[in-house]
């Protein structure tokens, strides 16, 4: 069998930042019509390698060939001219423009007198979407659309500018299950058209589902490139983290099931998304909240934490009725919420790691009316080592940390307040598998210490790994209350969430 000419061939790529080698002699190739997964822990060099391919960074040594032709890629523009398209993890559209305007940004079709023809752009965008076999209104303003449509628009943007190779970085991170399925169908169709896809994901099931081959990077070197039929998930995970991972499967933890409830919420109603939720959480218990997008999980968390107003219903903590109408009250009652979007809601990105950690703890670092720098340093050092945050200098902005470490800072920040009840909304979104297992282990340890934990997650394996009990939310109410031992596997949970009773 003749070896086809690779769509992208990177050879001997070497890159160092300020004398630190980030990529060391890395080879990477993608065949036409291939989905090639790129895996590696935080700092393994995945994103640097991709940024070199996109023209964001220049390489120190190495060669790149596109469809067999050696090329120089020195700018984003040149990458695009060579048919490299990118679907970003952090969406990179202009929200105030329409879908069609975004798709053809900088490549607008020109009409009479060299002026932009938006009508032509709409027509061409329709063609691109038709080829993708999805329906998106090209005239809609991007800000008014849901994230799934943003992503389709990004893919259309790459295809509309004749990309032959698409880089997808965690494309399913913000998608619901059915949206993910639709994305996979689309990937299949793109493959059939000979478009190559470099797929970056921490989710092993997805990689197995759609990728043909996988390349694993570790510490800036290529560890292996294999067909997925030839490697086991355990080998991949071990390859990524360099050790065996244990935290990702369920471990039974004995906790007192008849302890007095810590939180009792009765018939909570708020806005249009929370329609009569009743739930009980005991100390030492981990409750998983499952549900589709829009089922009211996040809204329930916001109500419990006093961010959104409760219309009716009763909240009891330690058997006493309490009113929580703002986050300050929630914190003083021993609640902590670790929000979904850590960048927007959990961290002040430009502030230092230390300042972020101490924000909820300022009272404890006070001497008289002033903040004590020494107390602050000691407290933050303690939190950093306790939660194993990898940071060289706690005085540097938290923005510079990797996603996983940022999430640890958010966790550490709230755990520093020593809450009784912890609500975590998508605690492992966008973190690598090693950090994920650490975070799950952290959650278990907290529960073992007698804290009650509510975990909201769209990742069923994660919920199944950590929860003692799973509540399924549907249309703002609890539709099923399942003890962990009654859930046989992911499929059972999936069916419960979809509302199919077997």
């Amino acid at each position: 069998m003749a070896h086809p000419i690779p769509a992208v061939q990177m050879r001997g790529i070497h890159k160092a930042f300020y004398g630190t080698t980030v990529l060391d002699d890395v080879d990477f190739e993608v065949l036409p019509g291939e989905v090639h997964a790129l895996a590696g822990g935080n700092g393994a060099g995945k994103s640097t390698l991709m940024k070199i391919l996109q023209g964001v960074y220049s390489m120190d040594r190495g060669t790149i060939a596109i469809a067999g032709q050696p090329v120089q890629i020195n700018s984003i523009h040149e990458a695009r001219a060579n048919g490299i398209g990118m679907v970003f993890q952090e969406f990179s559209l202009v929200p105030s423009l329409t879908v069609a305007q975004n798709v053809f940004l900088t490549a607008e079709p020109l009409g009479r007198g060299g002026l932009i023809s938006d009508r032509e752009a709409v027509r061409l965008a329709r063609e691109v979407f038709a080829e993708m076999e999805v329906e998106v209104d090209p005239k809609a303003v991007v800000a008014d659309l849901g994230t799934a449509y943003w992503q389709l628009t990004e893919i259309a943007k790459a295809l509309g500018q004749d990309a032959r190779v698409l880089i997808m970085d965690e494309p399913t991170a913000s998608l619901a299950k059915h949206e993910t399925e639709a994305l996979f169908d689309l990937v299949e169709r793109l493959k059939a058209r000979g478009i190559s896809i470099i797929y970056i994901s921490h989710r092993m099931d997805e990689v197995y589902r759609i990728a043909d081959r996988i390349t694993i990077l570790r510490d800036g070197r290529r560890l292996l490139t294999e067909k997925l039929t030839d490697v086991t998930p355990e080998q991949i995970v071990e390859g990524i983290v360099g050790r065996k991972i244990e935290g990702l499967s369920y471990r039974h933890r004995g906790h007192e099931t008849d302890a007095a409830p810590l939180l009792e919420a009765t018939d909570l109603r708020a806005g249009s998304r929370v329609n009569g939720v009743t739930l009980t959480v005991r100390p030492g218990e981990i409750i998983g909240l499952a549900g589709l997008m829009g089922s009211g999980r996040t809204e329930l968390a916001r109500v419990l934490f006093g961010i959104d107003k409760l219309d009716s219903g009763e909240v009891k903590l330690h058997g006493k009725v309490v009113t929580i109408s703002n986050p300050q009250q929630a914190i003083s009652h021993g609640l902590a919420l670790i929000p979904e979007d850590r960048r927007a809601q959990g961290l002040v990105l430009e502030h230092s790691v230390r300042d972020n950690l101490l924000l909820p703890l300022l009272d404890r670092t006070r001497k008289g009316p002033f903040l004590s720098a020494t107390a602050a340093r000691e407290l933050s050092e303690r939190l950093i080592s306790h939660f194993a945050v990898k940071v060289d200098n706690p005085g540097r902005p938290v923005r510079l940390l990797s996603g996983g470490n940022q999430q640890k800072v958010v966790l550490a920040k709230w755990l520093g307040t020593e809450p009784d009840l912890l609500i975590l909304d998508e605690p492992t979104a966008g973190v690598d598998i090693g950090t994920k297992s650490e975070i799950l282990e952290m959650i278990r340890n907290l529960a073992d210490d007698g804290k009650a934990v509510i975990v909201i997650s769209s990742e069923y394996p994660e919920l199944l790994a950590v929860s003692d009990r799973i509540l399924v939310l549907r249309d703002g109410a609890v539709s099923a209350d399942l003890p962990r031992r009654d859930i046989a596997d992911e499929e059972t949970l999936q069916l419960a969430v979809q509302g199919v009773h077997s």
Partner: protein
Amino acid sequence: MSHTVQKAPADAGTATASTSLMDVLKRVDWHRYVIYIAFVVVFLFFAVLLGDQGFLSSNNLLNILRQTATITVIAVGMTYVIACAEIDLSVGSVAGLASVSCAMAISNWGLVPGILAGLAVGLVVGTINGGLVSMLGIPSFLVTLGMLGIAAGVAQWITSSAPQPILNDTFNLTFGGGDFGPIPGLIVWAAVFVAVGAVVLNKTRFGRQVLATGGNRTAAEFTGIKTRRIKFQVLLISATVASVAGMLYAGRLQSGRFQWGAGDELSAIAAVILGGTSLFGGSGAVIGTMFGALLIGLINNGLILAGLDSSQQQVVRGVIIILAVALARKK
């Protein structure tokens, strides 16, 4: 990512019989049209209330247009700056400095050097503003705040605070003092700036890149747009346009004076925001800006006719502007 059609909000206007009028109104994005609604409402209000005081006379209406013209010109440039998520506070004093530079050059060297001197003020200030913002990354608010003082100070300094008369009739008639056919020249100038400004912002790649840079700079950068250059260019445009406005002041009032244009930056910003351009960048409407400027002119005129003194005018004007901007907010 379902395969079903996502209905755009506009399509949703086809209400069934059971939906009330309120529902329909709620779904129409009327926030975008607030400026036009406000313009019509205020116009009708004054027409009814002040019809007897000559509000509707063609003379008065032309007056409103004439008085609004220079602000409109400045505001067209400002639309680009704000759509790009920057601000230019120096436009008013640039207009003043351009008016005196132009007047002094005309009396010393003649017509063409005068016009070039006026334009040069805009180009130089715009280059400095744009350079400091795009190269050094200093916020435009601070750069142009400093420039506001510098330009005003230089204008006062080089003239020793004295008005600089312009005796060149060609200049005075061309720059706002005369008429083009039946139409006052100032109105023609404003119309040209609005027309060119609207087409460039909506229909050229440059305009689109301004909006993209203002809407999401990272996205624009990753799409291959040179966002620094765009930021530089919008500030250059704004200062240059302001310098033309300064010459329009000079032509209409047959003199250059350091006070011309003082405070115009605030009227121009108000006109831009009233017109529906987002203060956070990413959207811009030059036609809206024109109506914003007209609304401000309308209010000024009406309040004078109504016999309010200037202190009362300021209060009422402020209230109306806050009200209109509050209504135009999306949420």
